[in-house]
């Protein structure tokens, strides 16, 4: 599979390492050149495209048209939303997006009802874990 990742932060770099290890083809789009170079050193692979992943031309250059999966994992919901908008417009790839504000999930859901964007909110995951912990804990009286 060809996976396109936008955002070369911690999540992006660990994802790349794991996906490459599984034999997938991966390209990471990262705005900061220094960060991109560090990533290449770390991964010992030429997998980065330096540029703004919210720019349709940069995504096209990175291979958006032939991508099977696009992962929007920058730290900003608005940037991830734009990555999904461009992907939905220009390719048939499966979209996965990181969403910080759980409320924003609804907006990502509204982009494509047939082939919905998969959203992952760590805020929500933690909230769920707390909720489970609280409900599982014996009530002390």
């Amino acid at each position, binding site marked *: 599979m060809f996976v396109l990742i936008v955002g070369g932060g911690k999540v992006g770099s660990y994802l790349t390492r794991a996906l490459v290890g599984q034999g997938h083809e991966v390209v990471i789009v990262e705005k900061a050149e220094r960060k991109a170079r560090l990533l290449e050193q770390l991964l010992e692979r030429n997998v980065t495209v330096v540029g703004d992943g919210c720019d349709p031309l940069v995504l096209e250059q990175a291979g958006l048209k032939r991508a099977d999966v696009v992962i929007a994992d920058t730290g900003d919901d*608005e940037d991830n939303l*734009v990555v999904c908008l461009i992907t939905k417009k220009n390719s048939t790839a499966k979209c996965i997006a990181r969403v910080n504000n759980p409320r924003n999930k609804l907006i990502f859901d509204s982009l494509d009802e047939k082939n919905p964007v998969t959203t992952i909110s760590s805020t929500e995951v933690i909230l769920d874990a707390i909720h489970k912990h609280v409900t599982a804990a014996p009530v002390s009286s």
Partner: protein
Amino acid sequence: MRYLIVGCGRVGSTLAKLLDADGHEVIVVDEDPNAFKRLGQKFKGHVVVGTGIDYDVLKHAGAAQADGFIAVTNGDNRNVMAALIAQRMFHIKKIVARIYDPTRGMMYRELGIDTVCPTTTGAKMIRDVLMEAPWDTLQSFDFGKVTSLTATIRAADAGKRVSDFERAGRIRIAAIRTGKSVRVAANDTVLAESDEINAIVAPEAISEFAQMFTDARVPEGVG
């Protein structure tokens, strides 16, 4: 009308003051409380501190009852996200977002969001000033490079027909204003002095169009 403005920068604050002065109810949202200083003492509207891409912040700001929504933060991505929240979660009818990137502006328009692109409009206005253009850029179509221009008919051209100024595929005259009345142009419409024409002009024909309405300059110091 109740208008909700996200982003209290130069454009946001100026627009807020304009709408407020026109008697509208205006609410301005910005992350930075200091930004509201731009609104000045006379502003009668409301301000809300918070990010414009948060449902709860917009709800608190009264988005559910807003007639119009304007996203003018300094980030294109924030503006489109705020606009989508306004459209899909609050069902606000009129939504305008400022998008600096013309390509993306066009894409967002397909989503039902009106976009204003100061990049294209600004560049065209600067070009017009630079070329001492005898027209005003009325409206810039930022989804293409085609420009809508107005020019005034000179005495020397009175009696000419619309077709005399048209160039197939490059210059098309759309409308004519004579005094206060405006009509749609026909090929054989005869033009009078000081009639104002509105033309749709292709980028490669702009200087040609300019020449038709600029008096030929007599070079200084000749003869």
